[in-house]
């Protein structure tokens, strides 16, 4: 497959380029945790300003941060040639994502229109640069199930961005866009089920069989799932606008697609060839279990209107999807990507005799990753609990903060090992 065939040192960007994204992301996870401790009302209603700031710290500051970094690493491999102006694209998108996310969080927390104005310029500009570069690479890429998933994910990112910009213009007081409720629903749907889930799905086709040594996904599922999910997202937005009665049917189909992916992944993982303990595998399993829990929570809301109308329902969905699924899978991937890149650049730079440099597995101590996983798991359970019992919020935020900090320390340990052996970052 193209992803494997093209892994060459010449095409790969310097380590510093994606690494800055990976080392920034845990700090936003820490900021999100700090927000929960400082303002526990962030878990009281999804419309609370603190909840909106928290959501965007997670989605932009943590998830998008890692996903952009990973794509900047991966796109040259997919396209078979270097990204146009890779260093400049990385620098601009990283700086504007960091500052833009901070501005957006400030805007929500302080209800400050000027902060929304700054966020619009930074996030709009930064993402535009990234999207332009990614589009060029993806246009050149050879089609395959992974490339198709990434294409639809990036397209969803563009839709999410445009809707988000329109909503921010409203908050900045510059424009009063029509159909605000639909725009909000579509912004969340394209962001979470489009950009985040489609990217995870596209990457899963490749990563789960390769790194977890499982049989391949069923070919028909791999061929159709991403396209079906994207089509359902379009239908979802159209139904909201023109035919609200059809929304539950589209939602049911979306839930079915999510279920199919989670069940297929868990089944493959249970058929691994060698049953060795692996933190990334545990993170993926937690992620898939959280997706299943999302479907159950959604199903309950279809039968109990009181639950569907409660403040807790959307918050629990958010905690399960963002914390339980997305943050988990991304953490698991960071524990593969960063040690792999550290090992890859070391062996290529030093042309070292094997044995004179650490192996990939030695880059981060297994024990520490395992400890961080347990903290993250505890944080997820406490966060879900805090949605129903608010007095748990401070404990949940504190454990999440510890988990974020340990994630950062663990990633830094690989970087320290890399530079200790004489690795160069740029």
């Amino acid at each position: 497959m193209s992803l494997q065939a093209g892994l060459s040192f010449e095409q790969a960007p310097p380590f510093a380029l994606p690494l800055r994204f990976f080392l920034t992301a845990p700090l936003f996870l820490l900021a999100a945790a700090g927000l929960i401790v400082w303002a526990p009302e962030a878990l009281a209603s999804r419309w609370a300003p603190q909840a909106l700031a928290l959501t965007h710290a997670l989605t932009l500051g943590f998830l998008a941060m890692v996903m952009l970094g990973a794509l900047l690493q991966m796109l040259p491999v997919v396209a078979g040639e270097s990204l146009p102006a890779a260093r400049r694209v990385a620098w601009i998108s990283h700086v504007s994502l960091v500052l833009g996310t901070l501005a957006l969080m400030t805007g929500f927390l302080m209800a400050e229109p000027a902060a929304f104005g700054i966020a619009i310029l930074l996030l709009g500009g930064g993402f535009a640069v990234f999207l332009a570069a990614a589009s060029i690479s993806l246009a050149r890429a050879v089609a395959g199930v992974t490339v198709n998933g990434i294409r639809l994910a990036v397209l969803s990112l563009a839709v999410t961005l445009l809707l988000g910009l329109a909503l921010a213009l409203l908050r900045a007081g510059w424009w009063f866009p029509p159909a605000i409720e639909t725009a909000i629903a579509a912004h969340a749907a394209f962001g979470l089920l489009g950009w985040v889930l489609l990217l995870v799905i596209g990457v899963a086709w490749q990563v789960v069989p390769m790194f977890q040594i499982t049989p391949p996904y069923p070919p028909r599922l791999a061929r159709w799932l991403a396209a079906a999910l994207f089509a359902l997202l379009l239908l979802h937005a159209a139904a909201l606008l023109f035919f609200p009665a059809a929304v539950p049917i589209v939602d049911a189909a979306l839930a079915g697609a999510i279920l199919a992916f989670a069940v297929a992944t868990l089944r493959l993982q249970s058929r691994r060839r060698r049953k060795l303990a692996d933190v990334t595998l545990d993170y993926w399993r937690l992620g898939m279990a959280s997706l299943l829990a999302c479907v159950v929570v959604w199903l309950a809301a279809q039968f109990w209107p009181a639950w569907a109308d409660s403040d807790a329902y959307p918050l629990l969905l958010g905690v399960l999807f963002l914390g339980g699924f997305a943050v988990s899978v991304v953490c698991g991937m960071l524990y593969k990507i960063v040690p792999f890149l550290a090992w890859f650049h070391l062996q290529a730079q030093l042309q070292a005799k094997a044995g004179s440099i650490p192996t990939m597995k030695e880059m981060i101590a297994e024990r520490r990753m395992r400890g961080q996983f347990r903290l993250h798991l505890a944080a997820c359970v406490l966060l879900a609990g805090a949605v129903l019992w608010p007095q748990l919020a401070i404990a949940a935020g504190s454990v999440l903060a510890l988990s974020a900090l340990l994630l950062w320390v663990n990633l830094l340990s690989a970087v320290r090992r890399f530079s200790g052996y004489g690795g160069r970052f740029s």
Partner: protein
Amino acid sequence: MSIPTQEILVDARGLEPPEPMEKVLQTLDLLRPGQSIRLLLHREPFPLYPLLAERGYRHATRMEADGSYVILIRPAGENR
């Protein structure tokens, strides 16, 4: 005096990337003249090929009936 051809078997089936590559690079360092490596793997190791070429080795890949691969690796200069 002829040097007996010896094959070093590296069974990397079911190992997680990049362990198979690490094992092969480790074995290359131990290789003595006349020796070659027989690598068994559950998938084709595309990323390994440019590294082998860079280090002056050639390879021959064969797919087995069970879908796994056998890759023979020897110094580019040696015959057979």
